[in-house]
Every structure is written in C-alpha cells, then in structure tokens.
C-alpha cells in the first residue's frame, strides 16, 4: 500500500482566496493510499520545506504531492527537499492549483472542486511513479573544432587558453579560411592578414592545440561528452615532422595548376602551400595533378628537398580520437553558379550547387562567350591585396590593364528566390563599399558605380563607412542591372536608376559582383555526418533562434561563424567565443549528470518493428543483438542511448508493442491520471 503525503499550499492568499485549501486537504486525506495531509500558508518557505521533510521522515512517506504553483516554479525545490529527506526525488509531483486554478477562476466553489480534482489526478498518477536515478556519464575533456577559419581559430584559442586540449580539423592545407583572402576589412580598413596571421601562428605554437591540416572528419559516433571522431588525414606526400618549410620544392616544381586560394587568378605549383603565410608551412602534393604520382615522371621536389621529407608512397591515414564537445566552424562560400551565369570568367573551383532551369532563366544574360572581366568579391579582394597576384595593383584579369571604370553590382543572387536565395546576404553592402574605397585608393582617377537595391548597414560604424565610400567618389545608383554585354574590350552594363526612372548604361572596364554568401557545397553531408539540423539553404540550425543561438540541435555540438548563417568577422568571432564558453561550461564538471526521464526499452517485449528508431529525432535508439549465456544470437531489440535521449517520448507513442516507455511519463502514469478524471467538473 502506498504511503502518500499531500501538501496543500495556500500561497499566502494567492490560492486560499479562491480555493478552500482545508477542504481540498480533507478530501485528499480520504483518498486511497494517502496517509498524511497538510494545509499550510507557504509550502516553499523554509519552515514549509522543513515540515515537508519532517513528514517524509516521520511518516515514512513513499510519495508526495504538493498542491501549489506551477511545476516550473517549485518542482525542483520539492524534489531536492525530498532527496534531502531520503525520498527519491521522482516520487514527488506537483498539482498546479495556482496558475491553472486559483488565479484563473474567481468562484471559490469552482476553484475548490477543480483543485480537488487536479490533486486527485496526481495522487492516482504518483502511485505508478518509479524511483529513478540520475545517470552519471563519463566526460572526455577534449574539444574538436571543425574548420580552421577565423571562427575555428578564435574558438580553439579561447579553449586552449582556458586549459582545454583542442584539435582543429581543417580540410585545406592551411588554416585561415576566407578571411585570409581578404585584403582590408570594413569598417576600419585594417589589413586582414595583419590581424589574422599572428592568430594563426599562436594556434600553431600553442601546446594544447593540435592542427590536423588537410584532413577531414569522416565519421562521428557517440554523444555529448563522449564523441568518437574518425579523422581522415589526407596524404600530403610530405613528412610533417621533417619538413622545415624552406620552400625549395615549391619553387622548383615545374608543373602548375590554378590556385584555389587565389580564386584561379594565377597558377600555383603542384607541390604547394596555399599562400605564403600558411600555417602549417608544410606543403602538400596535389595528387590529382602530380605527374610523379600519376605516371611516375618528374620527382624533382624529392631531389631538391634538403631534409628528404618527400614520400610519394604516403597513404591517407585514419585517426580515431575521442572528444567531449564539438565546435562546427565550416564557414561559407560565394554562390558559385550565379557568378558564372553573369559571365564570370573561370569555372569556379568551388563545388557548384545546381540551379533550377527557372533560376537560370531569370538571371541576366551575358552574351555568348564568357566575360573575363566580370569577377566576384573574393576575386576582387585578391586583386586588391598587397600579397595577391598583382601585388595590390588593381588590374583586370583579361589584359592586365588598370580599369578606369568599375561597376559593382550588389545583391547578386541575394534577396531573390528566382535568381538565387531569398535571404539578405548582409555583408555585401559593406564589402562593396569597402571595394569602392580600395579601388578609389588604388586608382585615383578611376570611376566606380554601385548598382544596389537597398543599403543595409546596421553594424557599429557601418553607416558612417557607407557615407565615407560615397564621399570618396563611389556613385551609388539605385536599381538593378539587366544585362552585361561585351563592347570592344569593355563591358556594357545596362541598368536602370529606379529613383529617376531612367535607364543607365555604363561602359565598364571591369564588373564586380557582390554574390550571395551561401553554405559550403557539402554542408548537408557534413550535417548528416555530425547528426545536426540544417535549414533549407544548408546553413546549420541553432537549437533556439533567440535563446540558444550557438547550440546545434544535438547536445555537445556547437556552431560558430558563417556555417550557421551569414556573418561578418566581428559577429563570427563573438559567436566563436560564445561556443568556447559553452564548451568550458560543459567541461567544468568531472562527469555529467543526465536526467533519468528518458526512454527505456523492455527488450524481451520488443518485436523489432524499429518504428522507434525511425521516429526518434535524436537518433538515440539503435538496434542491438541480444545474446544468450553462451554468446549465441538470441533476438534483436531496440536500445536507447541515455546520452542522446532528450525525453520527448515520441518513441513511446510510436511503439505498437508498448515495449519502449518514457520514464516519468509512462502509459501507466498517464492512464492512472486520466482514470481519476470524471468526477464533478464544477
């Protein structure tokens, strides 16, 4: 027989005003299994809690109902008090007679009847509450940072400075990401390399940071606190530990191909580092191009390498490393196809995303043949960069002439579902303004035009920056460009000024497109490998748009930078530091406590329909083989991973054989609660 205690709270006058608490207590005392009742002014006060604990101990109560305010307020309070008194905390339930009764009904008779009923329902329910124990899970205090752009660098440094062991997995041969490509940065026009490279060096020298450059995450298993990552270290054909980064090899390499880092503007050797300040400075051999690897010809680099670190037989290496938390910082790319449709001059090295026929048709047409001098923003950054292919002189790609008239087109592919994506790419207004300035500073007599839809410059110092660009000579034309055609060695830009209603034609030497920022081409695969959510564009989804902006939908995986949405550098860095803070919070304990209100399978009953496996939003359920004593296969069954289960109970509803149950909300409990219903309603 149950020994239930019922504690009815008057909440000063908050409950007592419209509920006859004494009457409720009396009624509860008459219920089956109730051995103790109290009616008290403030249950949550210190004396109230003492009374609660004393009753548990003295009356040997094995379950308690507190009829009081919402469980959101004091469920934890009374569960902790029960635990202190030696009663399992999950044998305490709250009947909400304040928010759901006394505060919403003015009639005392009505309030009293409803309070009785609500408490009675809880009394019946609690008879089926099982004592539950919190799970203690081990915790690996090592963090994985996926992507080594500014977001990954910032997060790794923050963590390492706090004493956490960090591994960065970067798929390119060097850290840096897109920020390393930028020449100068808005809104201060400080040189990107100057603020970026010291950080990269700091990462390399930090004893707690391990950089896996030219590597990819192949598989991820486990759950918060206990992830296991399979990392594929792609063959560099260069022995890391021996290489001094002297550069003999890449200077002597007789073959070349387009440089990805320079956006294909120039060539790079086959054995290469992406850019001179690369970190690590170990070169890699591009095995899709190297004639030695492909057909055993050449091998010059091996001959010139002093420390003898070239190894043409090297294979990809698989490393398995355990992590407790993961920060995803895989960044963005510029929308590839739109730029090609505008007549961009080179096949983009970036993974193209397919455009629908409708989208392709809606794009402004360029004449047959490619317009070589139509480039995108990142290419312009390289042209303007002092360390770029032109040494910082802005020269157009076709003939190397200094362009006298440059047209910048904003919102290419953004804010338009027909041409590209519906969202605003946000940073393009700013970098276009920056580009006009960089151009104006380099070519004093040059003329720059900006075709724009709206100017969006909401950041700190941003509006001022736009004004400055206009003061320095950029002519802003509000309107769209409909057509780019070749005219001699110039490009005829046909546009409209929607403010004056007139057509505007400009003969430009070069056109720069501010193409939309979109997720990496493989972001959906990456999300699937990680088991995190992504939106329809491929940006990774945060757990809550306002209150949990850096958490992914999977516990222990956090999001930093442009992989989660369009961002400029200050925002990226802020978010990266936020993820580091979250990881530090997680790692501040030695082990993790998990709520026991999760699903559990009765494996003997399970009939292997795997419905639960299909519906679980957290992929928490797996199929396991049950073995008999001799280790022979006996039957299949579902099994819940307590580290992954979030306690939604969707599986419980889906299970036809009723073999999987959500602790704390079992069918028995709910049915008992419903069964208590049906008495007087008013």
């Amino acid at each position: 027989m149950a020994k239930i205690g019922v504690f009815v709270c008057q909440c000063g006058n908050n409950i007592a005003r419209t509920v006859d608490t004494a009457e409720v207590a009396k009624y509860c005392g008459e219920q089956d299994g109730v051995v103790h009742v109290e009616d008290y002014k403030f249950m949550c006060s210190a004396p109230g809690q003492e009374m609660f604990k004393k009753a548990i101990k003295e009356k040997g109560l094995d379950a308690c109902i507190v009829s009081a305010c919402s469980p959101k307020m004091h469920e934890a309070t009374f569960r902790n008090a029960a635990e202190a008194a030696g009663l399992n905390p999950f044998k305490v339930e709250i009947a909400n007679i304040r928010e759901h009764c006394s505060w919403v009904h003015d009639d005392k008779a009505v309030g009293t009847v409803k309070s009785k009923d609500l408490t009675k329902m809880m009394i019946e329910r609690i008879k089926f509450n099982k004592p539950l124990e919190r799970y203690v899970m081990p915790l690996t205090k090592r963090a994985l940072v996926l992507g080594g752009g500014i977001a990954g660098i910032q997060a790794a440094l923050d963590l390492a400075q706090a004493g956490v062991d960090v591994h960065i997995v970067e798929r390119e041969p060097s850290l840096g990401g897109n920020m390393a490509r930028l020449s100068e940065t808005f809104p201060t026009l400080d040189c990107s390399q100057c603020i970026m490279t010291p950080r990269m060096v700091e990462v390399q020298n930090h004893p707690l940071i391990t950089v896996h450059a030219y590597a990819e995450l192949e598989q991820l298993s486990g759950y918060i606190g206990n992830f296991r990552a399979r990392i594929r270290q792609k063959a560099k054909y260069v022995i890391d530990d021996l290489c001094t980064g002297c550069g003999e090899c890449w200077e002597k390499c007789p073959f070349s191909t387009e440089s990805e880092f320079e956006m294909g503007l120039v060539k790079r050797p086959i054995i290469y580092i992406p850019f001179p300040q690369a970190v690590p400075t170990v070169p890699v051999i591009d095995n899709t191009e190297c004639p030695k690897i492909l057909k055993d010809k050449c091998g010059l680099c091996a001959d010139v390498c002093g420390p003898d670190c070239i190894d043409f037989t090297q294979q990809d290496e698989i490393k398995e490393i355990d992590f407790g938390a993961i920060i995803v910082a895989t960044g963005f790319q510029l929308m590839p196809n739109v730029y090609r449709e505008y007549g961009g001059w080179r096949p983009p090295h970036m993974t193209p995303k397919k455009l629908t026929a409708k989208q392709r048709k809606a794009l402004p047409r360029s004449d047959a043949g490619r317009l070589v001098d139509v480039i995108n923003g990142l290419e312009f950054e390289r042209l303007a960069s002092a360390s770029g292919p032109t040494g910082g002189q802005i020269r157009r790609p076709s003939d190397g002439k200094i362009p006298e008239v440059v047209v910048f087109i904003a919102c290419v592919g953004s804010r338009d579902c027909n041409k590209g994506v519906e969202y605003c790419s946000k940073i393009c207004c700013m970098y276009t303004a920056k580009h006009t300035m960089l151009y104006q500073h380099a070519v004093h007599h040059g003329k720059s035009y900006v075709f724009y839809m709206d100017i969006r410059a909401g950041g700190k110092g941003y509006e001022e920056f736009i004004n400055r660009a206009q003061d320095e000579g950029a002519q802003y034309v509000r309107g769209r460009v409909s057509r780019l055609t070749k005219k001699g060695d110039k490009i005829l830009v046909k546009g409209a000024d929607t403010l004056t209603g007139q057509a505007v034609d400009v003969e430009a030497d070069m056109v720069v497109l501010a193409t939309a920022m979109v997720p990496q081409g493989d972001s959906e695969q990456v999300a699937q490998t990680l088991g995190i959510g992504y939106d329809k564009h491929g940006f990774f989804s945060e757990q809550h748009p306002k209150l949990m902006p850096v958490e992914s939908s999977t516990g222990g995986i956090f999001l930093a930078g442009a992989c989660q949405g369009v961002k400029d550098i200050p925002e990226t860095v802020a978010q990266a530091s936020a993820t580091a803070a979250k990881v530090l919070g997680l790692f501040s304990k030695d082990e993790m406590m998990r709520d026991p209100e999760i699903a559990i399978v009765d494996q003997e009953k399970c009939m292997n329909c795997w419905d639960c496996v299909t519906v679980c939003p957290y992929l928490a359920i797996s199929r396991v083989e049950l073995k008999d004593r001799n280790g022979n296969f006996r039957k299949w069954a579902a099994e819940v991973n307590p580290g992954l289960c979030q306690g939604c109970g969707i599986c419980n509803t889906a299970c036809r054989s009723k073999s999987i149950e959500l602790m704390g909300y079992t069918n028995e409990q709910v049915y008992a609660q419903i069964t208590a219903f049906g008495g007087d309603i008013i």
Partner: protein
Amino acid sequence: MGKKIEIHDFEPKIMAFVCKWCTYSGADLAGTSRMDYSPNVRMIRLPCSGRIDPQFMIKAFEQGADGVIISGCHPGDCHYNEGNYYARRRNTTFRQLMDFHGIDIERIEFSWISAAEAIKWTEVIDAFTEKVRELGRHPQYDDEIVDPYAQFLVQKDQESA
C-alpha cells in the same frame, strides 16, 4: 471578492493533453496574467505533443469526457524539433478513425498554442467549452461496454476454479 460563475444545466467535462514547453506554459501565463476562463478543463502535462497517444483520448472519453483538447507548440517550434509534426499527422489519421467508430470528431480539438499565447489558450478553452456544451453530453459510453473476450476470460476463470 469571488465573483460567482454562471452554472448551466450541463457542464461539459474536458480533458486537455498538452506539451510542457508551449501550451502548459501558455496556460501558466494565463494564470500569472490573472485571465479568466471556463473551469471545465483538466490538463495532463506531457513532454511533447508527440507523446500524446490516441488511446489517451479514447480513455478520456471512456472516463466520461465530453471533449478532448490536444495542443502543443506551433509547427517549427517543437522543443524536440519534430514531435508536433508527428502529433499533427497522428491527429489527422486518428480523427478519421474516430469518425469511423462513430465518435463525433467535433469533440476533439487540435490547436497550436505557444508559451506566449495565454489569450489564445483562454479563447480556445472558452470556445471549445461552449461548443461542447451545445453538443451536449457525450453518449458513446453511456451503456456498459460488453467485451466478449473479457467475458470469455472471466468464464474460463470461474470454470477452472
């Protein structure tokens, strides 16, 4: 203090199955904002609308409920990402099944109520109570249900005893 509410000849009994993140909190907000709504409803708190088993509703009707409310977070807002989509799909199919069994589907209300929509909560409760009051008592389980299999078991028990 304490204004009397008008009591009708027939006061419907309504059971609500709600998720704890949105609707339950919305109802809490109605309380903290001291809104007033009809007292005919009893709420059962579940983690997610995806946990609402159609059999809970049948059980509620069997216990004498005249109407049942199912409510959770709005589409796209589910704390567990997709639980409410399961609830919605289940509700669509299950309504037809209920209809087929002769249970008036007008007695089942499905509504998205967020944690901020205290007003919506009160409106849904008031409107639904009014609607069920007009529909009248739910007659489905008035007669004792005879389960032939259960009878058979009882009989077998007696025989063996």
